[in-house]
Every structure is written in structure tokens, then in C-alpha cells.
């Protein structure tokens, strides 16, 4: 279909979005070419200096990127596996089905920043219940303050918070699957594992890809969790890109520089998400 009316459908949304964003984005681009900071708030012009600094003299930014990749890919992978397993479990043949489904959805309804404060008390090394348990075995793992474990803690909290999102999308997908292929597989005498590998999983591939991409987009903003749990510490060991940008922008007020960081981040994210999406499509559809 092709009518001139089509613009009347697209444009309200697009124009509102553009209208609200055009100034902020344009301003950010301009900002990234200036040295705006706490002391000189103003749009002077320094050319690409911020970008040069970013590419030649900011190892911390690139380290935070690596960390972000590690954290987001790990959490999304875990969320996918767990979300899929849970969806399969409450898909059918289970008592209290409704209860479990609602329960499994709840974490995603909570405000991450608030729940993370609760998690922080849960993982509190000397006053929290987790170490109270571990102390039975004479251990006091440093959940928030050791380099390796603090990442694990961030992952646990992220998994708790966002597995329900995967769970919801995948369960909805499972419930909309056609019945025939399963029937056919049953007739062929396929067991549950073969059924999953040859029927369920391939049928779920498109939904899986969509869910993973959306989660990756969201996970790449991992911030609330880090902000509350570890403030990026100890050292810089749990600092992610958006948190680093936050520090440069709203802590140190190097706005010009943080604008350059943000735009670079945005472009890298858009490119890498597109590539990941393409790779996933290849991988999942082929298998």
C-alpha cells in the first residue's frame, strides 16, 4: 500500500521524537567540540581535541568498554538461558502455574536502583545475610569489595532483575507456537530433548534474537546497579562505559569531553549491536 496518508501516521511520532531530541542531540554534538567544563561553561570551539584525547589518551574509557562487553554479554547470556529454562518449566504441566508465572515476573517490575540498595544490604560483607550464611563455613567472601567478586555480584543482581524480561518474551513465544510440529515430533517418537533441539528451539529462534537484542541494548546501559553497589570499584574494576561517562559528565563536569565520549559510545554501540544482530540471525537460524 502506498498512500500519501502514510506520512500522517508516521510523522506525528517521528516529529515529536525528533522535535524533542533534535536540540539535545545537536547540542551534544556541538558540546563535544567544546571544552565546556565546570570552570568554563561555554561553547568555545576546540575542534576535535576531545576526540583526540579520547582515542589517544583515555585507556580507562576503553577498559570500561571491555568490562561493559563482558558484563552485558555474560548477563544477557545467563538471562537467556535461565529465562528460557524457566519459561519451558512453567509453559505447561505444572501445578500453581499462575502463581509461578506471576512470581517470576515480579523482579522486572521493581525499580532497579531501589532494589539494588536492598541487594547491597543483602550482600553487605559484615552485616548482610549472605555472609552470615557463608560464615557458617568460616568464609567471608568480599561481594562488593574484591575485584572479581564485585563483578559477580553485579551479574547476580542484573540476572535477578532482568531474567523475567527474557522469561516473559520467551514464554509468550512458547505459548504462540503452533501445535502441529510437536504432534509430528511426538508421532516420530522424539523424546523431550530431541523435541527441544529439533522443534522448540528452531521455532523460537526469531523471538530469541529479538529478545536478546533488546536486552543487550538495555544491558549496555548497566548503570543503576553499578552506581549503587560498587560505584565502579574497587579501583575501576566494575566501572562500565555509561558509568564512566556519568563520572566524567555529572561528577567532574567535563561536559565537552563527556559529550564526545557519549557520541563515540553511541556510534560504537549502534555498530556493534547491528553486527551482533546479524551474527545472531546467522547463528540461530542455521542451527
Amino acid at each position, binding site marked *: 500500500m502506498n498512500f500519501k496518508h502514510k506520512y500522517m501516521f508516521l510523522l506525528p511520532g517521528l516529529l515529536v521524537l525528533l522535535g524533542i531530541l533534535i536540540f539535545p542531540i545537536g547540542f551534544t554534538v556541538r558540546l563535544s567540540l567544546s*571544552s*565546556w*567544563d*565546570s*570552570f568554563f*561553561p561555554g561553547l568555545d570551539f576546540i575542534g576535535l581535541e576531545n576526540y583526540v584525547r579520547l582515542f589517544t*589518551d583515555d585507556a*580507562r574509557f576503553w577498559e570500561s568498554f571491555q568490562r561493559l562487553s563482558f558484563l552485558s554479554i555474560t548477563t544477557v547470556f545467563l538471562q537467556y538461558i535461565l529465562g528460557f529454562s524457566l519459561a519451558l518449566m512453567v509453559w505447561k504441566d505444572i501445578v500453581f502455574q499462575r502463581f509461578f508465572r506471576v512470581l517470576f515476573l515480579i523482579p522486572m517490575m521493581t525499580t532497579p536502583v531501589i532494589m539494588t540498595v536492598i541487594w547491597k544490604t543483602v550482600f*553487605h*560483607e*559484615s*552485616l548482610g545475610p549472605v*555472609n552470615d550464611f557463608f560464615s557458617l563455613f568460616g568464609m*567471608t567472601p*568480599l*561481594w*562488593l*569489595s*574484591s*575485584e572479581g567478586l564485585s563483578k559477580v555480584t553485579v551479574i547476580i543482581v542484573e540476572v535477578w532483575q532482568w531474567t523475567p524480561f527474557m522469561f516473559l518474551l520467551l514464554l509468550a513465544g512458547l505459548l504462540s507456537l503452533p501445535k502441529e510440529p510437536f504432534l509430528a515430533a511426538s508421532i516420530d517418537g522424539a523424546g523431550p530433548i530431541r523435541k527441544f533441539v529439533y522443534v522448540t528451539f528452531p521455532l523460537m529462534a526469531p523471538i530469541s534474537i529479538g529478545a536478546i537484542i533488546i536486552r543487550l541494548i538495555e544491558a549496555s546501559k548497566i548503570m543503576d546497579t553499578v552506581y549503587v553497589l*560498587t*560505584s*565502579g*570499584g*574497587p*579501583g*575501576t*574494576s566494575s566501572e562500565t562505559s555509561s558509568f564512566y561517562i556519568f*563520572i566524567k559528565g*555529572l*561528577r*567532574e*563536569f*567535563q*561536559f565537552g569531553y563527556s559529550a564526545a565520549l557519549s557520541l563515540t559510545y553511541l556510534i560504537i554501540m549502534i555498530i556493534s549491536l547491528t553486527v551482533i544482530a546479524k551474527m545472531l540471525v546467522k547463528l540461530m537460524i542455521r542451527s
Partner: protein
Amino acid sequence: MNKTIRISTMVVTASLLAATAQADKWSDQFPHIKNTGDVAGECSYESMSKKDYSGQKLTINTHAVPVIGEPTALHAQQFSKLTGAEVNVIHTPAGDLYSKAMIPFQAGQAPYDIVFGFSNFIRDWKQYLQPVPAKYVNMPQMQDVTQSHIDVNSWDGEMIQFPIDGDRHYLKYRKDVIDNPEYQAKYKAETGNELRIPRTWKEYAEMATFFNGWDWDNDGELEYGSAEVMKKDDLMFAAFFSRSVAYAKNPRVPGGYFFDLETMEPLINGPGFVEALTDWVEATKYVPPGGINFGLGDEINSFGGGQTLFSFSWDDAFVAAMQDDSPIKNKVGVAPLPGSDRVWNRSNKSWDMEYNQAPYIVWGWTAAVAKASKKHDMAFDYLCFFANDANHQADIAIGRFGVNPFKKSDFDADIYIERQGWDPIIANQYADTLMEMEEGSTNRVFPLRVPGVFQFNSAIATGTSKALAGQLSPQEALDEVAAEWKKIVKRIGADTVREAYSVGVALEDNL
């Protein structure tokens, strides 16, 4: 000089205590000031009730409840009742106070008439703030403020921020442990040293290590050596500077502590600082589990809850420990920060082998009026009312308020003994220690108050936390900080930083 202050203090205090007996009409209406009643002054309840700000609105950005946030809201309510003004109070977590105010400042907006913040924001904020008018600077209420706190709130002789709170770092220790003859004997036997209030950081470390990881107060829980702010956040740098002053602030070497004022080269990676950071890394062994991630709140909880032997940052942990419902009330003592047996002399590049101790005049809570506000009179009246004698006396008695002494009249032990039931020995120790820091010392360090202060402090936090986490050695970490500082200086401009820094150095060098 010391003596005259003491005498004048006594006079003021006497009058305050005298007022206690007679509740007046204001204390009936405002139970908050029931101890003192209204205290006469330009910004007293009486004076404020004569002002009429009805129909006007005052917007204040302050800290979260309760620390500073609760008194802000309480005094706002009182102010509103007295003057008819509408006062809108916003509460913001400490780490975001700077940005919450800076964003509108930089965007040329004035959503807040009054902004609460820390004294070291002064250089970045100064261009957006309205200096305190002479009539407030000259009033008796302000004359009572200690010189340190006048200095902290002023820029080049001009008062920019309004003193509403006093802050400092000092040593807090478990008096019941240090004074325990049994432990003293045991300690002597095992280490060969006396168990006493630590005079140096090395002694501090030895005692903290000795008392780390066993149940020395027989409550069934393990206790530890020390609770410190080690979390990589906005307060971390202050903890580090408190530990480094003794090694790095040499009374014989003027011309800068953080930078060499002439060259603007960072001194932060000098041997004095490295020594302090080495001590600090050592300290990770005698903090409670997770202590390396403690923020100020955790420190307060930990020491205030009786978990550790020492703690050395702001008043809060001590005040928490001395609250009525505290299990360790009257079991804690106060002393100046530990010193060192030697101090680095950067002019002849060698250690001066002598005892050195220097207070770090820590930045603390202040408030200021936005230049862009259209209600300067009302705003200053509010701040003045916040800090009037009656309110201040009542506020410092409430631990969670986070309002601490900054007036000469505060340094009288009787106030604490009578009003708060402190042990007289502890109360005297407290008053004397604070007074000595405020008025006595000539060898002291002011916080870094330069443009882009957050960038400098953030670099410190990043570098030292890498060292604490074992990612880097102390020297490497501080070299990294110094390199970062150089870049920041270069970005902002060496002259700009120098100009701002020289204001602080002039105070340090007692010029």
C-alpha cells in the same frame, strides 16, 4: 590568645546555660529549642517573627534526610511559620549535590535560591553565588564562628558561603579498650609497646592489627581494628589526605602542599604521600570484612555500632557512638589525628626526622545563596536563622542531624555533660581536641579549593582505590594520579589553578 578565647567562650556558654532554665514563649511553640529557649540575636525567633515574607517562595536544595537534610527541613518549617514564607526543600544524596546545583548554574537557570553543599565546591560555585552581605558578616552570631570556619567559607577574604556546620577529621577510639589495664598488659607483652592513644599512624596500625579479628568486648561478635572511608566515592580523598598530612605537610616548607605553587607541579606522588598510601594499603588488613568498600555511612555504622577500635573521619561516627541508645555510649574517646615520626622536606629532598602532626581542615557542609535568585534577603535570613544560637545548640545535640560545633561557644564541655549526659572526661577531651584544631594549630592543611576540584579528587579516589585493591603499588598509583593532575592542570590552565590555589596556600602559610 588561647586563654582569651576560652574566657569569652565561657561567658557565652554561661549565658546559654542560664537561658536553659527559663523556657520562653518561643520554646513553647517550637519544642526543638526547649533546652535554650530563644537566644537573642539578629536572626533569633523573635527577630524573624517580625519579618513578613508571606506570599514569597524559597526553594532549597539540601542533603538527604536526616544528615543536614532534616535540620534544613525543620528550620524551613519554623521559618515558614515565623515569616509566612513558603519554603520548598529538596533532598539530594551527597554525591549529587554538586551536579544538582551545577546543572542549573551552568544552564543559566535559578531553580534553587539556596544550595547546600561542601565547602570545597567554593571555587567552582563562586561565580554563581551571592557573597554574604556585610550586615551578616558583622553580626555577633558570625563573630562567634571559629577562624577556621570563617576561612573555609571565604574566598580571598570575602565570605561566599554561610557557615552552618563545623567539620573536621579527628581520631575516635574505644576508650574502654585502650584504658583497659588487662589489655594494656597483654599488648605490652606481645608488642613491647605501650597501649595508649596512638600518636603516630604506625602506632595506630600496630594497635589496630593487634585488636583485629577477635571478640575483645565479649559481645559474641568479632571486632576489628579500624573503620575508614575506603570506597571509591566522593569522600575518599578526604580520608587519604587525613592520613597524609603528617608525612607531607612540613611546617618549614611553605609554598604548597598539593602543588608546588611556583611550577604547579603536583606533589601528590612525593615520598610523604607514598608513605601514607603504603600505610593505608596496610590498613586494608585491619578493617572489617568489606571494609575496603566502606563509605562514610558504613564507617559510622561500623564504629558507631561498636565494631571497631578506631575511626578517624568526621564527627558522625563519634556522635553516633555517644547517642543515648548506643551500646558504647561513654566508651569512646577523642584525640587529634595521629602524626608521624618524620616528615618529608621537599626543598632538600630528605626526611626531617622529627615528630609532626597537622590537622587537615576538612571541608564540610555549607550553604550558599544563588546569585541568580531573586530573593537574596529572604535566603540569607533563612540561613542566618538556621544557624542562630538557639537552633544551633539544639541541632548539635541530635546526632542524626550531622550539625557539629563550629562556634567558639560550642567548645565547652558542660554543654555536652549537662544536655547529653556525656562522661565529663570524654566531654572535656572532645571540647579541648576540637578547640585545639580550630584555633591552636599553625601547621595545617586546607582542602583543595580550585576550579575542577572534582576532577582532582576523582583522580585521587581512582588512584588510591587502585592501590587499595592491589591493582597498583602505592608509588605507581600516585604517579598515575600525578600524571592525571598534570593533564587536568593543563586543561584548565596552570595560571587559573595557581590563582585559586594560592588563596588556600596563603592560609596554610599563615600569611
